[in-house]
């Protein structure tokens, strides 16, 4: 059976390889080309798709936990949700987690994922002590920032294009509650939104939900949610059973009107000004994980997420321009997530830079890619970049302008013969 990505677009067929030993994986790598490692299939676009896929998900053993250092050693196919299930009750949490817990540790490294605390803790690679990776020649290397800095910089954020991550040692952080004190700030426009982000910068977790169908003076109005863990000793965390969307919705279900209604309800239910709530880990960090297969809401043609980031200096102007363009197009998005990021790291393809990022989900439909091309121009004009993990269509030119280290990455792949073994549809499109 072929594997697709979370966006269910493109519809492709592929050969899926599993391996139960390093020897077998070595054989696969020496025998085939156009290989790409695949975890839990949560990247949106074609970054983990190719004609030959290496399924790493079955490698899901926990190996060891060092309580002193909070250092967890796992195989690459372990899901973040499994780590939470095992360790939150013992008072540990992920140092860095994205908005879904249903990704593998290997995938978290390959996308160098980030979360609501990027401005404090940085990307996932910050909590990675070391990992084991099988390279193009079948050699297994233990890689860390100190011992093999180039391999580390290429692999963290490198979209699986340097080899197959087998195991990783990651640091967890101590928590004393599975509850978060959340403050919600309702703003009326983009200016207020930016001011609120600045004002609450010292909060370790922050993210804003933007109504991107708002018009004129209301453009950029948002609910900013900030918070931190409580200290009440309540650690009774259990994975909740998921409600699942059983089939693809008809593609007309999601239209300008339904999104507008949803946004109106969501925005309307929040109190004016500043309000406070106590919420649990799943509500605060992973609201969408409660609904299995939520991608089916977008219909059988699938969806894509457009996520870009702009440097702080150009963020206001750029976001205003982009939100105006989206609002005009009438193409709706349930999810428009805005966040202020901290400093960039040294990894060659990691997405975050200091500035504001916006992520929008769109269903695949006629006219969408034209709109996104138009948004690309605005992003490039304001010196921004596109997030590869979400992308399925960006052009080589747009991509290159956003990532100044791309030549180093290309040279490194070439020098280590990775480019002749590991390729995704995305890597071919953007020429990496």
């Amino acid at each position, binding site marked *: *059976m072929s594997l697709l990505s979370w966006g269910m677009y493109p519809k492709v067929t592929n050969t899926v390889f599993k391996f139960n030993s390093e020897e077998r994986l070595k054989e696969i790598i020496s025998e085939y080309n156009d290989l790409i490692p695949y975890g839990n299939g949560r990247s949106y676009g074609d970054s983990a798709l190719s004609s030959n896929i290496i399924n790493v998900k079955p490698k899901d*053993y*926990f*190996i060891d936990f060092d309580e002193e250092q909070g250092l967890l050693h796992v195989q690459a196919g372990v899901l973040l949700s499994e780590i939470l299930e095992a360790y939150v009750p013992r008072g540990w949490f992920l140092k860095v987690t994205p908005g879904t817990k249903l990704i593998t540790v290997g995938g978290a490294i390959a996308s160098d994922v980030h979360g609501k605390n990027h401005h404090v803790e940085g990307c996932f690679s910050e909590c990675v002590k070391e990992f084991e990776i099988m390279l193009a020649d079948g050699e297994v290397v233990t890689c860390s920032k100190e011992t093999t800095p180039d391999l580390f910089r290429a692999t963290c954020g490198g979209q699986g294009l340097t080899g197959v991550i087998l195991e990783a040692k990651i640091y967890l952080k101590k928590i004393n509650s599975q509850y978060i004190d959340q403050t919600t700030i309702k703003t009326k426009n983009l200016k207020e939104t930016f001011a609120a982000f600045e004002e609450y910068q010292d909060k370790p977790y922050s993210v804003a939900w933007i109504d991107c169908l708002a018009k004129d003076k209301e453009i950029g109005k948002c609910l900013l949610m900030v918070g931190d863990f409580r200290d009440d000793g309540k650690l009774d965390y259990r994975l909740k059973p998921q409600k699942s969307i059983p089939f693809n919705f008809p593609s007309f279900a999601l239209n300008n009107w339904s999104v507008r209604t949803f946004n109106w309800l969501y925005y309307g239910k929040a109190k004016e000004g500043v309000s406070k709530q106590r919420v649990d880990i799943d509500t605060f960090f992973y609201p969408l994980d409660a609904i299995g297969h939520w991608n089916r809401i977008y219909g059988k043609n699938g969806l894509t997420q457009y996520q870009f980031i702009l440097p702080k200096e150009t963020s206001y102007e750029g976001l205003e321009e982009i939100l105006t363009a989206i609002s005009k197009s009438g193409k709706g998005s349930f999810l428009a997530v805005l966040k202020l990021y901290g400093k960039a790291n040294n990894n060659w393809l990691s997405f975050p830079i200091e500035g504001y990022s916006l992520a929008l989900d769109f269903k695949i439909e006629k006219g969408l890619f034209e709109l996104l091309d138009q948004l690309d121009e605005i992003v490039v004009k304001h010196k921004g970049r596109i997030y590869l993990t979400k992308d399925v269509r960006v052009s080589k030119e747009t991509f290159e302008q956003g990532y100044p280290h791309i030549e180093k990455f290309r040279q490194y792949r070439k020098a280590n013969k990775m480019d002749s073994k590991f390729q995704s549809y995305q890597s071919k499109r953007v020429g990496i």
Partner: protein
Amino acid sequence: MSYVLIIGAKSDIAKACAREYAKHGYDLCLAARNVNELSEFAQDVTTRTQKSVKLLELDILDYKSHQGFYDSIEEKPLGVISAVGYLGEQEKAQSDFEEAKRIMDTNYTGVVSLFNIIADDFEKRRSGFIVGISSVAGDRGRKSNYIYGSAKAALSAYLSGLRNRLYDAQVHVLTVKPGFVATKMTEDMDLPEKLTAQPDEVASDIFNAQQKGKNVLYTKWIWRWVMLIICSIPEFQFKKMSI
């Protein structure tokens, strides 16, 4: 120590059951042939749950060893789960009796040999639970896997009788009938997504059914209805079909 004994522990369903029971606070004993191949898995369960996992060597086809195997366990388990199973190759088994015998012995004879011993002990102690993983394939013989199916049918009948016998001793017996499950056993088959369970779903169903004292569990649940339909097709019609 309140531990659960899992036999046929190398199967994907057994491993999922091990994680599920450990998650709910049970220590474990895993028994299988060449059981040292499970040492990394045992470490996995312990790292996840802080529960102890012991490994025991057991050859389900070496019937003579079973009494000794069970006697050698000092503290007796709280309950036992058998995930022993061998699908085999139907076509080969039709002409090669060795293959047919292996299918029958693994799925039926071996389990009976060991369960007889454990049932006696549980009956005497008037406590314990027994979970036998059979299959929907045992509900009606079909040309594509009737040798495997017949062994599972025998196992289902055995478990039903055992449940009846042990009722007075308050020892509960659960018969599990999985439909399609995405495991090593079915790796090469093209299974319909909606009817196929993941091993961890099966394990969670087993845990809940065992805790609630259910008698027969179909997993996914829809298989109860699928099999009801399949079993109600008249034989004169069924014999012409290819399902």
